[in-house]
């Protein structure tokens, strides 16, 4: 990544607490990401990785703690502003199905642009370009229900990248992929981050993914693992 941007914190979540009923998913977890930085979030299943990602991306509102993006406190934004921010500045690849089942792959990928009032022709051209980059152009007309898990994962990644995000959040982007496809997807994510100086937050159980990150954040029981020494 670009050295002089290293210290420029773009995304900052501090001491985040989030519960679901009686389950305390996050107990003071923090995640801070510089512009252009690639950060891996790892930790055991249930440690709060997905929840932290959703809080940092402004999808979930934490009970306490502070979540900022480019200096803006997300808690001060209304729902409409938050969703506009997510659409324009963030690319989100969720762990579980987020494609619209009634739409074809190419329509799904074009959707963020169409919602943002880009014209139809250029939105679909861009969508096809991203499908091609992810080796998924042949799936353009398939619907999510007709695709394998790994195929829909690639479509979801194309959709997250189509709007040229400043931050790409990817929850287990290689989770449903075999080794060769994982390598391809990981390379595309890293290339895009390098080309556009987008920050990349990778929640992962895959050590190959964790290894390519600039930094690793380890969660355990809803908080950051204490870094000993280092």
């Amino acid at each position: 990544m670009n050295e002089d941007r290293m210290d420029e914190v773009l995304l900052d979540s501090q001491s985040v607490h989030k519960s679901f009923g009686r389950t305390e998913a996050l107990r003071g977890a923090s995640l801070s990401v510089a512009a252009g930085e690639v950060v891996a979030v790892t930790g055991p299943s249930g440690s709060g990785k997905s929840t932290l990602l959703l809080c940092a991306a402004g999808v979930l509102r934490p009970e306490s703690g502070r979540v900022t993006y480019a200096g803006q406190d997300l808690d001060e934004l209304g729902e409409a502003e938050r969703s506009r921010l997510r659409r324009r500045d963030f690319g989100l690849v969720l762990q579980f199905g987020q494609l619209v089942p009634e739409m074809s792959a190419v329509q799904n990928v074009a959707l963020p642009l169409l919602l943002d009032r880009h014209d139809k022709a250029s939105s679909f051209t861009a969508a096809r370009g991203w499908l091609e980059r992810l080796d998924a152009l042949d799936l353009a007309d398939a619907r999510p229900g007709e695709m394998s898990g790994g195929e829909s994962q690639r479509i979801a990644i194309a959709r997250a990248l189509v709007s040229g995000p400043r931050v790409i959040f990817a929850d287990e982007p290689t989770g449903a992929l075999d080794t060769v496809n994982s390598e391809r997807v990981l390379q595309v994510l890293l290339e895009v981050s390098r080309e556009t100086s987008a920050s990349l937050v990778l929640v992962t159980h895959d050590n190959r993914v964790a290894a390519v990150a600039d930094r690793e954040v380890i969660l355990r029981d809803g908080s950051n693992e204490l870094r000993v020494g280092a």
Partner: protein
Amino acid sequence: MAIGHVLLGILERGPAHGYDLKRTHDERFPSAKPLAFGQVYAGLAKLASDGLVEVAETQQEGGPERTTYAITPAGVETLESWLAAMESAGPYPADELVRKTITSLLRGADTTAFLQRQRATHLAVMRELVASQADVTNAAASIAIDHSISHLDADLRWLETAAERVAADRTRTA
């Protein structure tokens, strides 16, 4: 005689001299230590004395003598029976990593710190391997790197499980 079999495998594709053998070996097994010429010539001498390879040609045009070797029918047979015998799938003997981790745990020393440092060391190598995987373009080299990555990944998973068990143990006794 691991190197001998590898040399036979290369020679089966056609006669070659020592330098070719070294270069092809190093290309085929990018994650292994490059072969030293001494190893190549010692390997060839042994194969020749066992009748598995023979001298095909000796050239000397101004420069140093260049001997080209060819595989013999006995060599092909040896290569085939080597490939036919499956490698044992383990169990693997406890290596230094296991010895250190368990010793550290049983000493009651800071195993978490030990595991974190070890993970960082393993991840750094993983990073190099993933990068080299992106650079190679032939399937054979990719497959050799995959093997190193998979083994490293197994160690990393084991380290993660160890860290989880140590953390759970601490919660239980706290």
